[in-house]
């Protein structure tokens, strides 16, 4: 009985945590029909990702398993599943919510540290190559306007984005 109660509590706690994140609000509506998995372009080519499994494990309160998994980083954000879900679970947005929680808990794949560095240093996640920038006049393109780094830095400070513990070695 005690064990059962504990299990229920951890399930409810993780579900609540996801629901309180932007994008995670609809997670508990899932009834596991699998429309998402059958619409998923990633699940077609690899067994490493299945959206239905991610949602099921989340609702079962398997917090550490979900947050430390490779799977949550394999959604290609195509939104096919979200368009088709008969329960109106915003699946792609739930995946974002899970990624947001994972990042806060220190599970940061390397490439995401690079995206963050690009944003914080240049205001763009894809750095502008000097080679291409120099060629702009040759193509008749106007000079590139400066990115609003000052405002951006204030936004990143206000949300705590700049306090995230970016690291060289990502946890995957």
């Amino acid at each position, binding site marked *: 009985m005690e064990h059962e109660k504990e299990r229920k509590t951890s399930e409810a706690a993780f579900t609540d945590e996801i629901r309180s994140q*932007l994008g995670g609000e609809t997670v508990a509506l899932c009834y596991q029909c699998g429309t998402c998995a059958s619409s998923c*372009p*990633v699940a*077609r*080519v*690899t067994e*490493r*990702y299945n959206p239905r499994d991610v949602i099921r494990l989340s609702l079962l309160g398997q917090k550490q398993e979900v947050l430390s998994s490779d799977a949550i*980083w*394999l959604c*290609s*954000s*195509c*939104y*096919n599943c*979200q*368009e088709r879900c008969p329960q109106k679970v*915003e699946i792609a947005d739930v995946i974002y*919510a899970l*990624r*947001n929680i994972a*990042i806060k808990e220190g599970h940061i*794949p390397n*490439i*995401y540290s*690079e*995206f*963050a560095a*690009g*944003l914080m240093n240049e*205001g*763009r*996640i*894809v*750095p*502008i*190559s000097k080679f*291409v*920038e120099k060629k*702009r006049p040759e*193509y*008749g*393109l*106007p000079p*590139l*306007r400066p*990115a*609003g*780094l*000052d*405002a*951006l830095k*204030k*936004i*990143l*400070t*206000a*949300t705590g*984005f700049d306090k*995230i513990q970016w690291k060289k070695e990502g946890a995957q």
Partner: protein
Amino acid sequence: MTSYALFLGCTIPARQPQYEVSARKALTRLGIGLVDLDNMTCCAPPPLQSIDTETSLAIAAHNICLAEEADLDIVTLCTGCFESLAMANNLLKENSKLKARVNKILSNAGKEFKGTKEVKHYLKVLMDDVGLERLKKNVVKDLSSLKVASFSGCHLLRPSALLKFDDPERPHIFDDLIEALGAKSIWYRNKLKCCGGLLRGYADDVALAIARDKIVNTTKAGADCIVTLCPFCFLTLDLGQMLIKSTYKEEYNIPVIHYAELLSLALGIDPKELALDFHKIRLDKVLNKIA
């Protein structure tokens, strides 16, 4: 003349000047004014939404604030930028609580999101401000022997509840705009499925397997080229064919061309002015079919 704040984003100025050149030339020729604003930043696309959705909304909203201050609607070229900005714009217009939350963040940067402007993809601008009939009248080249596989990319259409661009399962606007140029837009298997581009950098093997599907399906359908809107789809399918060659030992050589480039060619703009050497797969097969 209708004018818009041109939102360039990162990938186009960083890697695909041919997209920017063709879009500027074609839109200007069709009477659309493009204004470059200072201080735009990254649009806050899926990679940043993955890190922190709230920060991403604030960054997107900040870009929209700059357009609001200039009293201009935004036009985007990249579908990724379109998705990030249009999603934020519509979400904040619809949800006053969220708007207050984001405005609290923006107040640190001296900005307030008001929700007075639209974010449009340039296809929508072509539909609204030029129209199919006027577009047809401006075409001076014959594209009638060209069979194209259109690929809009996911984020022109989905999530449809916020983007409101076209029917997410049976879209037609992009194909209508291709056919208005005289080319034939053909059907191919899994046309609306993702290119896998956003997995590049995290799971290159998975991304490439998905991209390969797209290349195989368009080739099997007999397309002369793939027409794209998103610089990420372009990269995934154009450069991707080099990677498919080295990984799968398969060679397709199907040209990938942005709609803005095809439009420029149809309007009679000299290919020499279009920086076409930024394509990995040569465009000869396409250029030879345009008379």
